[in-house]
């Protein structure tokens, strides 16, 4: 899966909860920290990214809700990957 597709899918799921600007800048910041810089992203990198984003969402949504948003993002990523 391409990095931009993955970022797009994750941002779309998080936007209702933390807004497009924050979702995008948080995702980009975590990608940078995790060394996700190439054109493609591995499943392990996606999982690491979701873990970091889930930890951040905890602050606003609590652990349960945050976990359900991450699960939603995982489904969106699977759908985006499967549609290729």
């Amino acid at each position, binding site marked *: 899966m391409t990095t931009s597709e993955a970022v797009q899918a994750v941002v779309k799921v998080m936007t209702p909860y933390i807004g497009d600007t924050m979702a995008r800048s948080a995702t980009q910041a975590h990608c940078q920290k995790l060394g996700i810089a190439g054109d493609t992203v591995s499943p392990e990198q996606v999982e690491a990214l979701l873990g970091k984003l889930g930890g951040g969402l905890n*602050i606003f949504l609590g652990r349960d809700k945050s976990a359900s948003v991450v699960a939603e993002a995982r489904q969106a990523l699977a759908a985006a990957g499967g549609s290729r």
Partner: protein
Amino acid sequence: MSRNGVPRVLPWAILGVAVALYVGWALAPASPLYTQLLSPHRLLALAAVLKLAYLLAGAALAFACRDRLEADNPARPAWFLLSLGLLANFAGQLCLAPFQVVRNQTPFPSVADIFYVLAYPFLIAALLVLLNAYREAGFPIGSLVDRAVTLGAVGVIAAVVAVPILRPVAETGGPLLDRILTVAYPVLDLVLLLPLALLLRIALKLRGSHAGEVWVLILGGIVFLCAGDICFAYFQSLGETHLDPFVHATFVLAYGLIAGGAHRQLRLLES
């Protein structure tokens, strides 16, 4: 419609009417509404009750938010501190309420000021803990330079606005404790404004979202709280008591917005 059957818009409508009532009182005190139906005593008593209700609701809702978050959630202490800050304000208002409701008086200074002053460390700490939670969670809170520029800008604006307001307040004659307290409130508010400015910057990035709604309401409420304190200090020291309705409107709005924000957060955690 909310879960308990109350239309969601109703609490906001009540808050809007309450604020409009006090702004109207300041702008048109000679109108029949204020001369025939609502006496100053009734309005002061109503303001006391509204403030108590919003503060108690805000404190309880903030505590419920703290309770819903896990023990290791970095935002949990912030909700607890916010709850304590609101509770301290509630205790202060509770001390004033009997005088306001029964005697149509607002003693100053009084025991209430101990609680009002005590609220500040809790509120300031709540905002700092929240900022730290954002940073720990990896949310972009701006570079060191960005933050320094924001703080510097707020500091300069606060000084430009506050100094001309505080100078006559400090120079007014009267007991030392009165003057200390009258200056202390706006100064503490300016300290509160510093972390608030950084958080408002982050809240802008949350706009259009559920979390954004929560933080725009809460931080907006704290902005009105600061404005109310500064107006109180100014009007009190200069004897402009006819402007007190504006102070009531500002505090009612501040407490209502904070309670509303805490309610939105609780709904988000329960969803």
